């Protein structure tokens, strides 16, 4: 947590929030905030990796899933929640028993990713771990960048190995423009740019995570035309509604 303090103090400074500073000061804020962000990402990804591997609890029987609902009263407070969470955690199977290195994409909102996992180009698919910081379960749309040159259809599998309805969308022209802008001013940072996104609705447990697997779908391409025309091919009809928290 020591590594996070620099970012916290800067995020509270009035000039850093409002933009009432000179350009070179803004750039200094930018540099410091970026460094704090990288520290924070390392903390968060290592915690998520530990949850997925079940390393922070005895055995390998955990799935990082908190209870769906727990009744609290003033006499028990948060201790009851923690205890109940641990009971639930210990009841979850862990389907993954392999080394996992998680990374965070800085530019998901422009369909770009600066991780060593080349989401767009490797063609082997990738795993998405989605952590829900809220205390209630939710269904939330997620979008991940992919390349249409790798595959014209993609399939998404949920944490219970169930098919999740997915849709392939072409990146918008403004997103392409922003990718070129980013490439121009940030040429030294390896980044993969997707020309499309896979969108799917993820069901996430409260204060917990779910993992999803995005992979090229075999045999689904009728042709190599526009991505938009293949959007229906990428859809798997199994619904997420029956997913288990």
């Amino acid at each position: 947590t020591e590594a996070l303090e620099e970012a916290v103090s800067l995020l509270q400074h009035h000039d850093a929030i409002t933009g009432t500073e000179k350009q070179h000061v803004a750039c200094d804020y930018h540099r410091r905030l970026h460094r704090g962000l990288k520290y924070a990402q390392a903390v968060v990804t290592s915690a998520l990796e530990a949850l997925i591997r079940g390393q922070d609890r005895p055995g390998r029987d955990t799935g990082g899933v908190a209870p769906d609902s727990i009744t609290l009263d003033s006499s028990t407070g948060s201790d009851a929640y923690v205890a109940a969470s641990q009971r639930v955690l210990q009841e979850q199977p862990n389907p993954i028993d392999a080394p996992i290195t998680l990374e965070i994409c800085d530019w998901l909102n422009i369909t770009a990713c600066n991780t060593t996992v080349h989401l767009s180009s490797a063609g082997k698919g990738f795993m998405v771990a989605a952590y829900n910081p809220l205390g209630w379960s939710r269904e939330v749309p997620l979008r991940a960048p992919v390349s249409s040159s790798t595959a014209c259809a993609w399939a998404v599998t949920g944490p219970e190995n169930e098919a999740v309805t997915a849709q392939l969308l072409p990146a918008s022209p403004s997103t392409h423009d922003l990718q070129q802008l980013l490439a121009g001013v940030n040429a030294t940072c390896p980044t993969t740019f997707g020309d499309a996104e896979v969108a799917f609705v993820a069901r996430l447990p409260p204060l917990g995570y779910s993992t999803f697997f995005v992979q090229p779908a075999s045999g689904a391409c009728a042709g190599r035309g526009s991505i938009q025309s293949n959007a229906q091919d990428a859809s798997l009809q199994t619904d997420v509604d029956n997913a288990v928290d």
Partner: protein
Amino acid sequence: KEQYVSLDNGFARLEFDTHTGLLHSLTVQDTKVQMSMHLAWYNSSDGLETQENRGQASGAYIFRPNGLYNVSSEGSGEGWWGTLLRRLGIGSNQGDPIVQLDIVRGDVVLEARQMFANWATLVTRLYKGQSQVEMEWTVGPIPFADGLGKEVVVVYTSDVDSKDEFWTDANGREMIKRTRDYRPSWELNVTEPVAGNYYPVTAAMYVQDAGKQLTVLTDRSQGGASLQSGQMEVMLHRRTLADDARGVGEPLNETACGCLACDCPGLVARGRHWLVLAPREEAAKPRRTLQQELNDPPLLAFSAIPREVGSSN
């Protein structure tokens, strides 16, 4: 050939006017509003002494607009005649803009992509199973070859009969009632009809009438106002060319850090609003719940697929 094209996910329905490319109406279950949204820009006062700005420039601290103009591919402020009129503060609001509209349909998301100019776009989305409307805005680099500072807003116009009242949040907590051109504790002398009605919007603002409430949720702190009944506007991005003489000593004309060339691009901003329409008596719960969900999005991390996936349970 149809005048309207609709997007419908079973919870919400959007109608777009194919002639203008603009939103025409929003329906959520049994609640309907006629509404549109478009991008516009205020010309930043340059601080040269005029009766309107009294020597005060728009800058990092001060919002001192001098005329409102629609963002459109033709009228982004580059023509000399338009520039002259705008310098004089003449020619506000030249009718509705006409924008390019593209529709993307699928099983998970329905998208309407509107291009107002090559530096200003909106994408409106309906996701499967969700009743809120997501509006992703992208603004920048704001052009300034015409010598005009610009402060870009998104304007939501509806038939909600809110009169002169609207509500904004207090740092994400209670919603506070605002009344246009009015302060509850003193008699206001209105000298800034636009800036004087802007309030902080850290999470939400809404207008309402007897039957319905229309809310805009934000993913970041912004400024907002309701300058007409049923209307809300939110400041998205600013690029001014004069210092406002409040201590910064530079205009608010930010470029990409680390870029040292003369033609470094100005910043681009991209963010999201969620529009929530609900019957007035039931509106607080979805508004407050969705506010939390927009401000606490899931955290995504990526990895290669572990070998065992598919072979284990």
